[in-house]
């Protein structure tokens, strides 16, 4: 009997490790940018190409930067959630239209509604590279000092909005 105990313990430990492994999402690569200042950029705004946007414009505010594109399917899924969020008026959402044609992006916003305070365009994806974007949609929570506090890879949904993003915004708002 005792000779089965050791292999059994090894088996149980292995199962625990595999179980933890199954629950991790390999697509979620931790970003080295969390805790660092949001990379600087100056990009034209969607619909108003004469105006530019730079993260410095948001100094003193807690804000979300949502990287999206008209060609991105998961962005369609998160769009209603962003619409709801924008109605709550809790936090400004700045869009970054990633590797997209401005006309296509405008069309999407006209059709489905526009949750963004404004949208900056990143046609060649350079700004995306500076932010370590590898799968749209991605959402960054940036604090009053312009420090990235959180990065969400994948669509915003009611769950992660309520459990992670909004509490974090409220917390940062107090500082």
């Amino acid at each position, binding site marked *: 009997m005792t000779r089965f105990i050791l292999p059994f313990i090894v088996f149980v430990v292995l199962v625990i490790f595999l179980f933890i492994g199954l629950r991790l999402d390999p697509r979620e690569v*931790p970003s*080295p*940018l969390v805790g660092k200042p949001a990379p600087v950029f100056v990009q034209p705004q969607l619909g108003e190409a004469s105006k530019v946007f730079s993260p410095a414009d948001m100094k003193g505010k807690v804000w979300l930067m949502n990287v999206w594109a008209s060609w991105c399917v998961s962005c369609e899924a998160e769009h209603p959630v962003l619409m709801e969020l924008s109605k709550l008026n809790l936090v400004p959402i700045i869009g970054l239209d990633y590797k997209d044609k401005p006309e296509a992006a405008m069309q999407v916003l006209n059709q489905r509604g526009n949750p963004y305070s404004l949208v900056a365009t990143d046609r060649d*994806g350079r700004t995306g*590279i500076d932010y370590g974007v590898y799968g749209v949609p991605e959402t960054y929570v940036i604090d009053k000092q312009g420090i990235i506090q959180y990065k969400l890879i994948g669509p915003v949904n009611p769950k992660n909005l309520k459990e992670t993003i909004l509490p974090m915004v409220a917390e940062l708002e107090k500082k």
Partner: protein
Amino acid sequence: MRRFLLALACLVPLLAYAGEARDLSDDPVTEKRMVKLAEELRCLVCQNESLASSHAELADDLRQEVREKIRKGLTDQQIKDYLVARYGDFVLYQPPVKRTTYLLWAGPFILLLAGMGILYVQLRKRKSAIKDETPSAEALQRAAAMLSDEKEKI
């Protein structure tokens, strides 16, 4: 005149060739360095492919980024640092040795040593077990008696 036109017509395909794959043949030295570097980097979109072999659009952009950095005269290490600053250690196929990766680097060797230890103990045990198996004189006598009994029965 007709010959001249014919010769002119022969030049037409050259025009078609001019724009092709200019990016790649621009500078073979840069390209070679880029490919070598990209083979050590992981594509974040299709995570089991290197940046060199991935067809993802982001990989394309990053290869272009690496090319430009090479042209600007950055060293391989500087280019890697540039990517790590944006995408984390995950982009490197060979993770750096630091506190969070000690177990990763030392793990296999610890397991190897543990395995060798277990093997050694087991072999020692077996050796002593074999020694004990040597039958005593008494046992041999008994066996011989049993064998002769058998013979008598037959």
